[in-house]
């Protein structure tokens, strides 16, 4: 296992595999950061239930754009240009979850509650990672992601208080996003994930991170009176 801590000035001296994996993970992270606003801004900014919610959507998008900026800077400084993800269509996003469009308030709320939480998990993988410029941008990003998760959770809870019909709509959104959330952790036993861990770029295996997520989310779903979806139904990466 590689345990050194690397600064920008040392990147050129590193093994090509380290540089490739670092460039790859930064590109995917940048794509996910900007992929969120591309999912919800178009339909949800005009359709949010209150003006305050419209403003919170705009603020959330601003924060995600800023996260993209910070990740793009870390990548750009080491010679990796990730700006192409700003203009690519949703269908070409690296992660399936970001391919499409959010068109309902239930989906928007559950997206924050479940998918931004996966985002937090992905960022936590870089805690104490071997590349210090990446490690340094994490605290502010994670703090803002926590705000997005809380907002999604509170809006989901608010919807659930509006009666059975609304609860069914929320459950449908949960059923849709839950399996996508689990897929976002990648394949169990992934060889690439092992190399990320070898180079100190990630902490957990895909299956460990997914298990931690399930252990966190399932009790929350139950406490809200929601059913836990079948964790295998519709999954693409098991």
């Amino acid at each position, binding site marked *: 296992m590689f345990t050194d801590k690397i600064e*920008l*000035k040392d*990147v*050129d001296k590193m093994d090509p595999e380290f540089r490739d994996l670092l460039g790859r993970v930064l590109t995917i992270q940048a794509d996910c950061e900007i992929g969120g*606003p*591309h999912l919800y*801004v*178009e339909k949800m*900014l*005009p359709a949010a239930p209150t*003006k*305050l919610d*419209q*403003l919170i959507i*705009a*603020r959330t*998008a*601003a*924060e995600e*754009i*800023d996260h*993209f*900026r910070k990740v*793009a*800077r870390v*990548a*750009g*400084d*080491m*010679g*990796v*240009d990730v*700006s192409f993800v*700003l*203009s*690519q269509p949703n269908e070409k996003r690296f992660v399936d979850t970001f391919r499409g469009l959010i068109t309902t308030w239930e989906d928007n709320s559950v997206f924050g509650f479940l998918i931004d939480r996966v985002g937090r998990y992905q960022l936590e993988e870089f805690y104490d990672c071997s590349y210090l410029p990446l490690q340094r941008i994490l605290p502010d990003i994670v703090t803002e992601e926590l705000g997005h998760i809380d907002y999604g959770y509170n809006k989901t809870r608010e919807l659930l208080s509006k009666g059975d019909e609304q609860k069914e709509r929320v459950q449908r959104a949960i059923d849709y996003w839950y399996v996508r959330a689990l897929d976002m952790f990648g394949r169990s036993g992934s060889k690439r994930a092992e190399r990320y861990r070898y180079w100190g770029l990630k902490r957990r295996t895909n299956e460990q991170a997914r298990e931690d997520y399930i252990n966190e989310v399932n009790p929350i779903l139950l406490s809200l009176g929601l059913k836990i979806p079948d964790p295998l139904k519709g999954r693409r990466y098991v």
Partner: protein
Amino acid sequence: MPEAAANTEQLDEHLLEVVRALHGAVKQGVSHAGDPKIVDPAIADCKEILDVIMAGNVKEWLN
């Protein structure tokens, strides 16, 4: 020291300005949430800024 990708600095500066403008508009709207004369233009400003970012014409921004 590795060579930075082209436009790294410019893109960073541009997006930082965008983010600040968005936060400014949001703050204006939130602090006057009950006044449509202020909150509606604030939301419109956010939409206008975000539409440009979502369109993703990076070359245009940097020129």
